[in-house]
């Protein structure tokens, strides 16, 4: 009787000791397994996606686009004529080479300013995150962004030369959207959906080319601002 009680106690005690040491060991190794998983996730993300793309740059790109559009709408084009079809008819009549040149300069300034500020802000963000900006993944991002973008640029020059004015703005939006979709695989996945919405805007614009000016403002202005604010609030 006493012996069985002793056995019971010793079993209970050893079991308790075993359980608690096991528990300790288990918890300890578990937290390190958890660390391991976190490291795997972090390294995979950092080496396959460029995570320094600044959300603010989207916001600024949108504001710059709207500023450029204001200059175009109020100063370069005849004020009041915002139906681009009429405007393009005027352009193709050949009487407004000066206006055409000014529009192109305006567009180029917008492009350079928006690109410059994106690169600068992303560079600053990478510094703050302690990450490099020129990595295998940022190179891949750039190649995948530039192939559809350059194709679009050449295509737009062809449209211009062939006097297909009404397709220029839809082509800008569609090719920009395609390049975002293609670059989206190498940075935040939101860029992919942002690209899809640009493509959609471009296709709508192709159906209603008369409202090209408005679609341009929506696609390059408001969508950028919405995307930029969303990304800034989510990641920065």
């Amino acid at each position, binding site marked *: 009787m006493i012996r069985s009680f002793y056995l019971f106690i010793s079993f209970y005690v050893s079991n308790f000791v075993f359980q608690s040491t096991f528990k300790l060991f288990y918890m300890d190794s*578990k937290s390190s397994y*958890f660390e391991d998983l976190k*490291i*795997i996730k972090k*390294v995979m993300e950092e080496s*396959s996606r460029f995570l320094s793309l600044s959300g603010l740059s989207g916001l600024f790109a949108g504001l710059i686009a709207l500023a450029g559009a204001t200059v175009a709408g109020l100063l370069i084009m005849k004020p009041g004529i915002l139906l681009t079809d009429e405007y393009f008819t005027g352009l193709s009549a050949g009487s407004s080479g000066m206006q055409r040149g000014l529009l192109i300069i305006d567009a180029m300034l917008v492009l350079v300013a928006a690109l410059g500020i994106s690169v600068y802000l992303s560079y600053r963000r990478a510094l703050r995150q302690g990450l*490099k900006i020129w990595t295998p993944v940022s190179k891949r991002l750039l190649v995948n962004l530039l192939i559809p973008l350059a194709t679009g640029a050449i295509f737009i020059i062809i449209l211009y030369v062939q006097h297909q004015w009404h397709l220029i703005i839809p082509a800008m939006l569609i090719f920009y959207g395609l390049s975002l979709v293609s670059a989206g695989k190498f940075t935040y996945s939101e860029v992919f959906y942002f690209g899809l919405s640009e493509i959609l805007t471009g296709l709508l614009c192709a159906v209603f080319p008369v409202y090209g000016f408005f679609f341009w403002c929506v696609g390059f202005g408001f969508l950028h601002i919405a995307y930029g604010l969303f990304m800034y609030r989510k990641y920065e």
Partner: protein
Amino acid sequence: MMRVSISGLNKLFENRIRLGIMSVLMVNDSYDFNNLKETLRVTDGNLASHLKALEENDLIKVNKQFIGRKPNTSYSVTETGARLFRSHLKALEDIIKAQ
């Protein structure tokens, strides 16, 4: 000889640097030495010894080539490496979920 525990955890991946190397190579077709060094923030010697261990166990393969005149060594994961890493990862996730 490689030691693989029943649960799918692999002794070779217990080291954080080896774990990092494998994580990079799982999501990239290939990655060169210098970029690995920068991504994982480790020293030359340290990285080289862990790469060697992984290579000797046939988990990664080495590709030496010249870019211009500079030698460039890049690494990619082997089929065995990918399989073992996936089961290691699954084992880790199972352990965490088991709580």
